[in-house]
Structure formats: structure tokens, C-alpha cells
């Protein structure tokens, strides 16, 4: 494993098609090691698909997805599962195991992948839950938690094994302002304190730009632009400007393609 490589993740000429629809067309993207990289773009542009490609839950139609120097599409099923121990993912829904309580959810990766004594597992789980502010909720079941709390428990579970790469899928959706502020700081803090590489997929501009070292804007099956948040804010590209400034009128259409509005309402008369 070449984890000395400057890039934790590299997408080289990746094309991904779902049926006849091209989600990504010959995309090149690199994620620098030890940094927070934000991937932004309008809803439905394939941001989550990109995370699933990096996690090898989807195979690209063509191209290479290289994580820690290993080309994921060429790995066997068991090699892939070993590889994933180095990654953590925070899913949009939290994806907690509904038959386990909060404590057991966070303890799950430790129980499956380590043979640590029970006291040590307990201490690690409580520390991870303390980091997300939910140590007091360790006895609760997932259906007793709010959406935001579920996501924080899922974050504690994602960092249980101290992965090298942590991916966040829309982490800011549904968080109240207090939790949002804590989460934003937590993502940055975890990245710096644990020496992780973080990939944040989001369309929450302000929050992502405030913590990301480097940003990609994706859309139309391409990487529309990349750079530091400050560079992208000053970009001349009209598509990037529209997204970064949140302007309704511009090259990225707000409306899904449709027939003539007047004719739809009034008919041919």
C-alpha cells in the first residue's frame, strides 16, 4: 500500500453511466492527503454517486479509482472489504443499525474488526460519543433519536476504527444551528487531530467553504471547477459563479426541462 502518496484518492478518467444516462464523463479528481476536500454541486448532479465510486460500492464504466495507491475496480471482493476498513462514511440518513442501541452501533466496527477487551471497547465508544455530544444517549435506540442525532451517532461509528479517509454525505442537512456549528468544527478538528483525509459532499455552501481546504464543483457530468474556496468565489466561470453566489438565473437551469409554460396552461388556443 503506498499511503506515502500525496493523494489519498485519485479518480483518473472516470466515466460512470446508469442505463443510458451519463453521470460522470471522463472525470479527473484528486483528494490531497490530510486535507478537507469539499465536493459541491447542485442537487442530483451525482455527488453521492461520486462517494459510492470512491467507496467502491459502484464500479465505474471506465477509468480508475485509486485509493491509497490501490485501484479499487481491480480488487477482489475480500480485498475490497479489507480496504474499506481504512475508510469511514457518514451516510446522509445515518444508516444506523435499527436493532442495536446507540452504544452497540458505535461498538459494532470494534467488535467485528478487533479483539479488544470489553472494558477498552466501552471506553473507546464513550470517548467517540462524547466527541459528538451524545454520551448520555448511549442507551437509546435509533428510533428514539432525531435525524440530526442519528447523523452524529453515525459519525461516532464512522470514526470508531480511526479510519484514514472519512467521507461525509451531506452532513449538514437537518442539523439545528447549534449542532451545525459543532459539526463544522468537529469535521475540521477530527481531520487535523487524527491526521485524516476528509471528503465532504454537500450543497451547503457557507459551511463547506468554511472548513474545506480545497473545493470541487461538479455538474453536467464534469468537474466544473476546482480550487480553494477563495479562488472559486472569485471565479469567472459563469456556472461556478452562479453556484457559489446562489443566483437563480444563469447557465444552470432552475427548472427541469419542460414544454412551453404558456401552452401547458392555456393549450393551443
Amino acid at each position, binding site marked *: 500500500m503506498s499511503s506515502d502518496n500525496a493523494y489519498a484518492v485519485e479518480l483518473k478518467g472516470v466515466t460512470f453511466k446508469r442505463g443510458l444516462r451519463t453521470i460522470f464523463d471522463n472525470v479527473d479528481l484528486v483528494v490531497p492527503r490530510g486535507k478537507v476536500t469539499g465536493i459541491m454541486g447542485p442537487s442530483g448532479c451525482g455527488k453521492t454517486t461520486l462517494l459510492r465510486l470512491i467507496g467502491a*460500492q459502484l464500479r465505474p464504466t471506465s477509468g480508475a479509482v485509486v485509493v491509497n495507491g490501490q485501484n479499487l475496480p481491480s480488487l477482489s471482493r475480500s480485498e475490497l*472489504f479489507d480496504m474499506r*476498513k481504512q475508510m469511514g462514511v457518514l451516510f446522509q440518513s445515518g*444508516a444506523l443499525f*435499527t436493532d442495536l442501541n446507540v452504544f452497540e452501533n458505535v461498538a459494532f466496527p470494534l*467488535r*467485528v474488526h478487533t479483539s479488544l477487551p470489553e472494558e477498552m471497547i466501552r471506553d473507546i465508544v464513550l470517548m467517540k460519543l462524547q466527541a459528538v455530544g451524545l454520551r448520555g444517549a448511549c442507551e437509546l435506540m435509533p428510533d428514539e433519536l432525531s435525524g440530526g442525532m442519528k447523523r452524529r451517532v453515525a459519525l461516532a461509528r464512522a470514526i470508531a*476504527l480511526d479510519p484514514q479517509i472519512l467521507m461525509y454525505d451531506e452532513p449538514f442537512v437537518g442539523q439545528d444551528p447549534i449542532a451545525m456549528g459543532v459539526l463544522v468544527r468537529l469535521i475540521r478538528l477530527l481531520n487535523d487531530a487524527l491526521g485524516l483525509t476528509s471528503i465532504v459532499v454537500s450543497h451547503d455552501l457557507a459551511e463547506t467553504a468554511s472548513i474545506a481546504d480545497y473545493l470541487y464543483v461538479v455538474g453536467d457530468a464534469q468537474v466544473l471547477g476546482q480550487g480553494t474556496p477563495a479562488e472559486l468565489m472569485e471565479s469567472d466561470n459563469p456556472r461556478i459563479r452562479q453556484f457559489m453566489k446562489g443566483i437563480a438565473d444563469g447557465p444552470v437551469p432552475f427548472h427541469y426541462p419542460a414544454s412551453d409554460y404558456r401552452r401547458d396552461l392555456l393549450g393551443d388556443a
Partner: protein
Amino acid sequence: MRRTPFIERVRLFGRAGLDIVEALGRSGLFLLHALVGRNGTGSSALQLLFKQLYSVGVLSLAIIIVSGIFIGMVLALQGYNILVDFASEEAVGQMVALTLLRELGPVVTALLFAGRAGSALTAEIGNMKSTEQLSSLEMIGVDPLKYIIAPRLWAGFISMPLLSAIFTVVGIWGGAMVAVDWLGVYEGSYWGNMQRSVEFQGDVLNGIIKSMVFAVVVTWIAVFQGYDCEPTSEGISRATTRTVVYASLAVLGLDFILTALMFGDF
């Protein structure tokens, strides 16, 4: 309404055929990956199996026992009414036992199992898929085929033949209740004729083989439909329906083939 051109209908027919072959291939690989290779779940594998044996097997006991008793009782009642015309009502025990051992035990258990446990398995796995729990397992580095699917498959394989045996035993006991205690058939004839006519290899063993085959088919269909379903509430509902329909048809079709192989004079 616009008529579909003939060539388009041929294309759709071909597409449907290819889809079926593709689904068969996918389900075959799915079964292979789930059952073969290193488990990776360590010492918890037995724990997972016991948990599933409870939810798939033990929780199906009530419906199996109640249905078994009633079917045995009905068989005895109907058998008695027919046999009494030929003064052969003493053979009712033999009739009840052979019917249950050879046919109704394995078949009805499989149908009830598909409805109770099979549909629950599909819905549970489908829901795990739609709430990203299966994806989450994958990303934690745990193969859901080993952790979620394999214990459920083995639980079905183990519990259904046992449920079928229990169904048959309580059915014979229900038959005795009606024939001996209610209709007055001599108890010695009921049990004696049964003992004399039932062969271990020809009847008991064949019944067990049937229920083992049904166990594999029904559980396989149930878990595959859950794993392969569209992860929406409508998709899960359709997959659950497919489980019951496909499993029931497969059981009835296979029953004919197995009966022909086991008892047919070729």
C-alpha cells in the same frame, strides 16, 4: 391508443427473457457468495445464526402447530367419511400419516413458511437496503452477504425441515383426536396400521428430502428478493409479494417433480 409494432413486441419479449436469465445468474452468484468463502464475522457467526433461528423458526411455530392440528383433523374427518363406506375406517391412521409425511407436511409447511417467515425476511432485508444499513455494513468492511444473508439462509435451511416434522407429528396427533376420540376408530388400528404401512426410507426420508429442497428454494427466493429489491417502499412491497408468489409456485412445481422422481413408476 397507439398499437405497439410487432417488432417492438418481439424486442420486449426478448428483453424479458434476458432479464430473467440475468436475474437467475445474479441470484446464483448471490447464493454462492453468501455460503462459500471465509465468513469474516468471527465468533459472532453462531450468535447471528441462533438469533435468526429464533425469528425464522421459533416464531413460526405457532402457525405451524395450529395449521398442522387442523389439517390432521380435517384429513381424518374426510378420510373417515370416505373409508367408512367401504368398512375400511381402520385405515384412516395410515391415510393421515402417509398424506402428511409424503405431501402435506413438507408442502403446507413450505407455503406457510413463505407467507410468515419468507415475506418477513424480504421486507426486513429490503428495509435495511432502503435505509442504507447494507451500504453502511459494506463501508465498515463487513460483507452483508456473510453478516446479514448467510445466517438467514442457514436459519431457513435448518428450521424448515424441523417445522415440517413438527407439522406432521401434530397433524397425526390431530387426526388421532378426531378419528379415535371423536369418531370412535379403534386406537390400536389407528396406530398399528400406521406403523405397519409407513416405511422409513420411502415415506419419512422422502418427506424430509422434500422439505429440505423446499427450505433451500423458499429461503433463497426470500432473501434474494429482499437484497435485490428497489429500495423504496413500493419496491419493498412488490418484492414481498414476489417472494410469496414465486416461492409458492416453486414449491408446488418442485413438489410434482420430486413426487414423480420419488414415487413415480418410471
